[in-house]
């Protein structure tokens, strides 16, 4: 099922906002490379007004990000801890702040959930997908979300149903939709494909 799904997010890529007074940059894993690429086309003083929240996810980009001399660089161990910090920053942030997010889709989706909650349209957040194509998937039957899904079908970690991963995406949940693949004939499951490595 590869037909274009209008809810399938697109990530146009990071580019510096020339008017923003503060740049709030969130990156995860290989997403840091997107920030470094943006640095190449950003004006010199850009990072003096930048706050960077970074989840390394096993990568070693921290020294390179630090070398950009951002106003602040916070390194957080997980998406959850990064989102907790993001909520704190958003609570006192003012207009003129541009939000950037780069990394895997579950990471970008988490950022967009937090920014939406304070009234920021998803189109206002500059995004770039880097790294794994893994997905967060919500089971439409039990409503449980499974993180780091790389194959379809897969087994729902909550209810155990075998789920087909659709391109149908929910911004509210930051997750794709997973639908029971063997509802008609239980046990008749198509071969597992590693689609989202």
């Amino acid at each position, binding site marked *: 099922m590869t037909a274009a799904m209008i809810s399938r997010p697109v990530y146009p890529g990071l580019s510096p906002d020339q008017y923003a007074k503060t740049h709030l940059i969130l990156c995860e894993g290989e997403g840091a490379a997107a920030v470094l690429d943006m640095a190449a086309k950003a004006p010199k003083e850009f990072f003096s007004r930048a706050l960077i929240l970074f989840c390394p996810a096993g990568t070693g980009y921290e020294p390179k990000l630090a070398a950009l001399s951002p106003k602040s660089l916070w390194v957080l161990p997980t998406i959850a801890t990064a989102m907790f910090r993001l909520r704190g920053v958003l609570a006192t942030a003012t207009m003129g702040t541009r939000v950037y997010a780069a990394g895997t889709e579950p990471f970008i989706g988490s950022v967009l959930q937090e920014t939406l909650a*304070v009234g920021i*349209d998803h189109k206002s957040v500059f995004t770039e997908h880097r790294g794994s194509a893994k997905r967060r998937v919500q089971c439409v039957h039990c409503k449980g979300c499974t993180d780091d899904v790389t194959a379809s079908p897969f087994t729902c970690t909550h209810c155990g149903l075998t789920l087909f991963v659709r391109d149908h995406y929910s911004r509210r949940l930051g997750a794709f939709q997973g639908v029971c693949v063997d509802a008609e004939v239980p046990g008749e499951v198509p071969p597992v494909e590693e689609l989202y490595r």
Partner: protein
Amino acid sequence: MSAPTEIRVRVAEAEAVTPAIKRLKLVPLTSTPLPDFSGGAHTVVHYTDGPRHVRNPYSLMGSPFDPSAYQISVLRVPDSRGGSALIHDGVHEGTEITITSPINLFPIDRRARRHILIAGGIGITPFMAMTAQLDREGADFQLHYAMRDRASGAYWKLLKSIYGHRVHTYFDDTNETLALTRLLDGQPLGTHLYVCGPAGMIDWVLKTAREAGWPEENVHFERFAAPPPGKPFQVALARSKRTIDVAPRESVLEAIEAAGIEPQFLCRGGACGQCETAVLEADGTLHHNDHYLSDDEKASGKKMMICVSRFEGARLVLDL
């Protein structure tokens, strides 16, 4: 978006709010209630006086929570094509007119953390309904309202009496100016800005907001362009196999309607995109007066918004 349906209404009240602004309260002729609307919605008033037809968009300014009547304000525009003057002078208490069901092209973004409303002159009307809605919903809002002077400004005393310190007024004749850059500075992230007023004011607000680093998704505006007059021209309609004359003070849409053809429309002000029409042939220059088509689309010469745009040249053929 489906085409608007027409509703017959009676003018229950006609009040001269200022020498140039008339408030009309419109009630349905039957027991069928008027359709619900949300703050920022407008209706198109269709008024006929002998040979003259007017179809003008007006913001609904009553409370969205009062389903018994609609309220609009008609500014008598000097030098206008006569439409507003016709309605201003010809419509009285008891007059029956036709309106379209409301369409909202200027809605409140309810995800916003704060709403800043900026009105200039008659641009206050959509905000009359929006403030009622925001107040009822307990939203954080403030209204900044600029007027020429105290006498010609409408509803500012009323708004101040209801919303108190949330309403800020600025009068040109006493040199009070809205310090916009300062207002925009330091607003909480997630604040949304709405502006309605003269074209120059809208342009100024959009530019100031952009330079203050506000994302365009947080800035909302509504401008209805009145169809600008111009030189007369002819338009050939390929599907109807008709050739229509467009008079100097008439839009293509109005000329086509006068010939008995009913193209799609919603706002009649170059904003909504409903009357977008394919241009099959244009030997001459299209004058795009809308705010809907992108610059690239305008340059391509393949489309025009027949409610406000004009043509100058030898031959224009539209897919109508």
